[in-house]
Structures are given as structure tokens and as C-alpha cells.
């Protein structure tokens, strides 16, 4: 056996095992990910939402203190965690409230408010929605952080499977033109061609979507890192101060932040004591206005007792990496045509997974070792495979 053959067999083994371990989970991710590409459209279709009042261009937004008060009137006994501007619907804002300030925000109630009138719209329970169930299956399989990190690990295996797949593509194609599809042959040959063709065509996309998905599974850890790193640094002098008994105006805090960071638009406000802020600050997160900079957030910390600016810094690289990796995973950054392309690529990925499993089962049944089959180009014409 030559050194090349030996090395190819090793790559074949890597491709087989990494693929086999992650395939079932990758299928789950591809299938649940498909409707998630269109989650806005599906939600609009399945659920009625109260429409915000028509507001001609230039209508000034409602005073945020009033808006917050009307929102809290809908949820007696709850405390606000976040105030969020709706990315896609400028007429609406969200107030996220929980039972206490240190309660887990993932169980928060979301109250939808009219940006311009400050009036209450609705507070839909999203947890029963189809898209919510798909999202939970897709991100953590209802298993919390361990589930997330586990899927991240499967994503890493998927990336290794793709890279080893590129290597073993070469011996497979030694005698074939690029794009060869032997339509007249048995299913084993045809599906091998489909697997090779779709696999090699989608290499860049599957690697990027796979790896950005892995990065997204680390979001909670990245947030913790930022909290104990940059956020702690920015608020060091407040460490031993008591929690302010009465908060200053939210509306003024957002205005101060707007002036401190000119050219950027508020994205959300984290109230004092939440994960995204200190005990003593409103953290106003602002974003830019190009497709890329609209994903990059910059916090401005406003002292919640005096209403003055404490500090505003660009987020560290690891947070920026997370934010940039999100659109690249979701495919939501180029309008409806990009979403459709994303869906088609997702379907082709399902083909790659299914044909891959089929080829493995077929070879197992016929007793041809996978490593040998991959390393040996002639195996395509092996009678065991083509019979």
C-alpha cells in the first residue's frame, strides 16, 4: 500500500466517523432550520398581531417613560428587564418583563407597544408557536445550555466531515469529469454522484453556515465573558454601590446615549441588574445602519441615579464575531431571494446527508470497507457496489 493510499484511507475513516456521529443531529438541524429561515412569514401567516397605528414619516416616537408605564400597567407586580426596538417593524417596540430583576429572562413576558402612541398592542405567548418549537429544537433540543453545547460539538464534527469530504472527493473523481452524474447506473452509483456533486458544490456554504452555527452555540458563554470582562471594567467604580432606589428617566437615558454615540440607532436598553448591565446602569445598546454595522452593537452605560454617561466602548472582538456570525447562519441579510436560496441550499444539504447514510449502509451490507472504497477510485466500479 502506498503512503498516499494509506493517508487517503485515514481521511476516509475520518469522513465516515465524523459524518456518522453527527448525521442524525444535522438532519434535525436542517429540517428544523428550514422553516426558521421564514419564521417571520410563518408567524405572520399563523398568528394575528395587533397592528400599530399608521404613523406618517417623521412622526415623533412616544415618550419612553410613558410607554414603559403603560406596558407595566399590563403586567402588575413585574419588573422590566429590557426595552427592545423591533428590527423589522419600526412601529412596534417590546418591553420584556420578569417576576424579579434577577429572574431568568428566557421565561420573560414580552409586551408589544406602539412606538409612536405608546399604547399597548398585545403580549403574545410565543412559547406555543410552531416557530418557537422549531427554534428550541434547533438551538438546544429543549435541553438548555448542555443541549446547545452538544449541538455545537455536532457542528464541529460536521465541519470536520466537510473538510475530510473534500480530501476524499479527489480519489472519487479521478476518472470522472466535474459534475458527472451517471444517470443510467444503479442507485448506489447515482447517489454517490449526487453526494459528491452536491457536497463539493456546497462546500463554502455548508462550512460557513456550519461554523457560524457552532459560534452561535457559544452565545451564552460569550455574554458571560463580556460581563466579567469589558462590562465589569467599565463599571468597576460602581462595584460596591447600592442599587439605586429610584431610577432616572428612561427617555432621558436613551437621549443621552444617542448624543454620546452619534450616527447610531438604539437597539435595546438593558435595565439595571440584568445580565446585560450593572446594578447601577441603564445599558443602551446602539447599532449602525449598514447591513454589517446594523449587527454590531455598541453599549452606552448611563448612570441610573444621575442620568449621566459613564462610558461607551466598542464591543470586544469575540462579541463582534458572534454578532457577525448570526446573519451568516440565519441567511436573513439579503431579502426574500436570499432566504429562498438559503432554503434550497438547506434542502441540498439534506440530500448530502441522506445519500451519505445510504452509501454507508449499502457498503456495510455488501461488505466493502468504507475506507477502502474511498481510497480506491476503482471501487466505484466494484461489482459489489454496482450489482
Amino acid at each position, binding site marked *: 500500500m502506498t503512503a498516499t493510499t494509506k493517508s487517503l484511507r485515514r481521511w476516509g475513516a475520518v469522513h465516515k466517523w465524523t459524518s456518522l456521529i453527527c448525521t442524525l443531529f444535522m438532519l434535525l438541524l436542517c429540517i428544523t432550520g428550514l422553516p426558521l429561515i421564514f419564521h417571520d412569514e410563518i408567524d405572520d401567516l399563523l398568528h394575528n398581531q395587533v397592528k400599530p397605528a399608521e404613523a406618517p414619516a417623521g412622526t415623533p416616537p412616544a415618550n419612553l417613560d410613558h410607554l414603559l408605564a403603560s406596558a407595566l400597567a399590563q403586567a402588575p407586580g413585574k419588573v422590566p428587564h429590557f426595552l427592545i426596538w423591533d428590527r423589522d417593524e419600526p412601529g412596534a417596540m417590546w418591553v420584556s418583563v420578569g417576576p424579579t430583576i434577577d429572574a431568568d429572562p428566557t421565561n420573560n413576558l414580552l409586551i408589544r407597544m406602539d412606538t409612536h402612541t405608546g399604547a399597548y398592542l398585545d403580549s403574545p405567548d410565543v412559547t406555543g408557536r410552531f416557530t418557537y418549537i422549531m427554534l428550541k429544537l434547533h438551538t438546544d433540543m429543549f435541553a438548555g445550555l448542555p443541549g446547545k453545547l452538544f449541538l455545537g460539538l455536532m457542528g464541529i464534527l460536521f465541519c470536520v466531515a466537510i473538510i475530510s469530504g473534500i480530501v476524499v472527493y479527489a480519489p472519487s473523481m479521478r476518472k470522472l469529469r466535474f459534475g458527472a452524474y451517471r444517470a443510467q447506473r444503479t442507485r448506489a452509483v447515482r447517489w454517490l454522484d449526487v453526494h459528491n456533486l452536491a457536497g463539493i458544490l456546497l462546500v463554502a*456554504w455548508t462550512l460557513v453556515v456550519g461554523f457560524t452555527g457552532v459560534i452561535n452555540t457559544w452565545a451564552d458563554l460569550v455574554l458571560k465573558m463580556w460581563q466579567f470582562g469589558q462590562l465589569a471594567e467599565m463599571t468597576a467604580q460602581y462595584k460596591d454601590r447600592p442599587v439605586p432606589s429610584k431610577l432616572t428617566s428612561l427617555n432621558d437615558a436613551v437621549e443621552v446615549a444617542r448624543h454620546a454615540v452619534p450616527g447610531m440607532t438604539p437597539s435595546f436598553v438593558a435595565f439595571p441588574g440584568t445580565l446585560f448591565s450593572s446594578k447601577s446602569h441603564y445599558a443602551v445598546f446602539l447599532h449602525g445602519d449598514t447591513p454589517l454595522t446594523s449587527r454590531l452593537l455598541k453599549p452606552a452605560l448611563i448612570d441610573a441615579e444621575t442620568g449621566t454617561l459613564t462610558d461607551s466602548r466598542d464591543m470586544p472582538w469575540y462579541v463582534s464575531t458572534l454578532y457577525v456570525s448570526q446573519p451568516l447562519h440565519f441567511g436573513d441579510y439579503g431579502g426574500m431571494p436570499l432566504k429562498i436560496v438559503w432554503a434550497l441550499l438547506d434542502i441540498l444539504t439534506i440530500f448530502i446527508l441522506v445519500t451519505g447514510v445510504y452509501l454507508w449502509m449499502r457498503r456495510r451490507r455488501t461488505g466493502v470497507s468504507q475506507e477502502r472504497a474511498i481510497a480506491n477510485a476503482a471501487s466505484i466500479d466494484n461489482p459489489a457496489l454496482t450489482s
Partner: protein
Amino acid sequence: MVVHRSLTRIFAAPLVIAIVSTVGLISALVGDGWWDAVSWVALGLPVLLYLLFIWRRRPN
């Protein structure tokens, strides 16, 4: 006897497609309008090629 193809020949087309895909992935992040359109075309290319190769049922 079929002539064995060199690695360069095997990987030439995949390399070009990978580069075009990468341009498509980045383009829509950079801007709107035409930038988006570049993304649609560049990322639509692998899908189109797939359909083309599968439907071109040429006898062996």
C-alpha cells in the same frame, strides 16, 4: 483505459465555485440593492449547477 485526472483538474471548478460562494456570502453583508443581487446570483449558482448536472441525463 481512462486517464487519471490530476488534482489541479479535479479541484479547479470546485475552487472557483467556493470563491464565488464566498463572495456571495459576504456581498449582502456589505451593502443593499446590487450587493444583495450579487449574493442571490453567487449563492444561487451551486443550486443551478446541481440541477443542470442532474437533469442533463446524457447517456454514458
